[in-house]
């Protein structure tokens, strides 16, 4: 497991098995663990707040290639924020999750994007913005357009899901898997992997104080 941090493992199986590290980020009770549970075990139950970080693996078949996700489901609670860098170090993909019934969680997701930008160089990590809980449409506070607009302006993938109703969950992870595999191919075809700056590093947020320093 030492070589786990995202590097494609050569020759593990005849059909090459790439390992990708994916982190779920977002504020408390937006449904990060529920998304993970739905994707990994196709299950839904009310879950207590995650402690620290939960780790799952799931192998996804994508046509000829199969790919293994190592999913780090982080706790949304503020007390764990400052240790989160431990979890997203070396990540290949990040899911920024917010709750469509909470404007606040949408703002937090944008905050998480800034944290990611501090940690990674552009294009290093595939980022998807996920608006969860579409089953609670009548309490919606963040419109689909708001989410989409923000995602497009920052070059993020975007999707709205419901872990409860199993709506678009597999699709969201699938889209990430596709994007990751495409990037792998591009990397193989053209050695210097430049040019596709997925993650717009808008401004350098130097020396931002940590969460509780306010």
């Amino acid at each position, binding site marked *: 497991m030492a070589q786990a941090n995202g590097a494609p493992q050569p020759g593990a199986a005849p059909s090459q098995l790439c390992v990708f590290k994916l982190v779920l980020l977002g504020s408390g009770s937006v449904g990060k663990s529920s998304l993970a549970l739905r994707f990994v075990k196709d299950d839904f139950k009310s*879950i207590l707040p995650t402690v*620290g970080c939960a780790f*799952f693996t799931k192998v996804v078949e994508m046509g000829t290639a199969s790919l293994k996700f190592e999913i780090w489901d982080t706790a949304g609670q*503020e007390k764990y924020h400052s240790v989160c*860098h431990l979890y997203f170090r070396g990540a290949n993909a990040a899911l920024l999750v917010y709750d469509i019934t909470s404007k606040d969680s949408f703002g937090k997701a944008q905050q998480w994007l800034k944290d990611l930008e501090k940690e990674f160089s552009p294009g290093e990590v595939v980022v998807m913005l996920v608006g969860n809980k579409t089953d609670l449409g009548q309490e919606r506070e963040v419109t689909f357009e708001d989410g989409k607009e923000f995602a497009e302006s920052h070059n993020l993938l975007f999707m709205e899901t419901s872990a409860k109703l199993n709506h678009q969950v597999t699709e969201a992870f699938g889209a990430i898997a596709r994007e990751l595999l495409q990037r792998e191919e591009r990397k193989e075809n053209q050695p210097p992997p430049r040019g596709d700056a997925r993650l717009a590093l808008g401004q350098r947020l130097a020396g931002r104080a940590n969460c509780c320093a306010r």
Partner: protein
Amino acid sequence: MEAGGDTAAPAPGDSEDLEDTQSPREEAGDSGGVHEDPPDPRDEGLEETGSETKDQPPGLLSALPQPEAPSCTSQLWDPAASENNPLGDPESGSGGQGGDPSDEDWRSKRKHVFVLSEAGKPIYSRYGSVEALSTTMGVMTALVSFVQSAGDAIRAIYAEDHKLVFLQQGPLLLVAVSRTPQSAAQLRGELLAVHAQIVSTLTRASVARIFARKQNYDLRRLLAGSERTLDRLLDSVERDPGALLLGAVRCVPLARPLRDALGALLRRCTAPGLALSVLAVGGQLVTAAQERTVLAECRLDPADLQLLLNWVGAPAFAAGEAWAPVCLPRFNPDGFFYAYVARLDATPVCLLLLSTDPEAFHDMATCRRLVEDGMHTLGAMRALGEAVSFSVVPSASAPAYSVQAVGASGLRHFLYKPLDIPDHHRQLPQFTSPELEAPYSSEEERQRLSDLYHRLHARLHSTSRPLRLIYHVAEKETLLAWVTSKFELYTCLSPLVTKAGAILVVTKLLRWVKKEEDRLFIRYPPKYSTPPAAPAASTDQASHNGLFPGP
């Protein structure tokens, strides 16, 4: 009786001996507050119970017979009677209700626990919403600072049937307001456990740092998600009083060869930075192994271990493998360990690995696979599974045994804590008790039994007049509590038992424990695997714990 002379059984069957031990107690009885040995049902203890009854919601009144009624013994533990009684269920209705101090429901709780900051900012309340309680908490702060201004510290207030206990821990103030029969010392123990729980998620140093920087900081932001853990901790006092009361951990009953093999397995499966490995089921200890190089010469404190056992028992750990920082308050309140927690093979068997290295997740995961493989080779999963399913109560997920196993009729329940474990200096305090069966299957009956145990414990450990032996005839049961140099024992017996009969039962129980002690307790703790070398690695954790760096 013949077993009396040697290690575990201090002449248990000798009734004369028992009378001897009793005599100091009888002197104490003169003081009036003692409620043991009462042929008179109106002794002090019962009067107290009566007055408490009046404070309960009306539902309880109907279930509890008046203490004066002498003829009701036969229906007393009729389970139907207690089930029909829809008592306002103090446990389940937590948190939801308003918490306005004028709210009847809120007022009717037997025990409140509050945590607030020195500035009077509410942090936690067992019942009700913290916001609605800010005035109440303001009063508490005023009380504390008033006494403080006189250069003194407030410890407790006794007001009729209520006890208010105050505990200041750094910038945090903890308050218990209780009309349970718990003593102030016992309540203080609970508050300390609550504080330890808070420290284990945040560390004492960061709590101090936060409030040093901003006196009116709202700590609830950082404790979000931990309130349920505190709720569970406080509820456990009434559901299953042993651990906190005796300051000991409960072990899964297991044949000694298997436990030894598992201990050896844990010691074999090491990784760099691994400080402690614990195997547990349902909050009970199977075995633990400590790495000498990390926890050099430092005995793991039972309070820390109990905290870890409660923590890994949380439903939040049910899925996947978890990796989280955790602080062991007794070991080092200012530093973090990193805990790897996983259920093995999707069973309730839980492995906890504590590492000093925040990056060691994958090493720990490898270590888990080694343990898993080793357990398969040993066939331990099946054996542990049997231990769990060997429960009379079908819903119990924790390993348990029935009191029937003792084979002493009239014995209903007991708590036994051995004090004569070999290798004591390296040993963890442990206790054992059977599962609570009828008549103690309902919430309120358990609470009542817990109250009785607390009363007895407070008498045995009274600072002014400690007792060694108490024989107490209560209205629905007879209790016998006994502390010697070799054990501390609380038994709950049928109310019809005679004194001689009780002695016989206790004798049987002590023989049984002696016979089963290898199975009930970890008697020979695993030796350390690594030789004593290298200084402790965990001293500088505060520096790299990651949380709350300075501005």
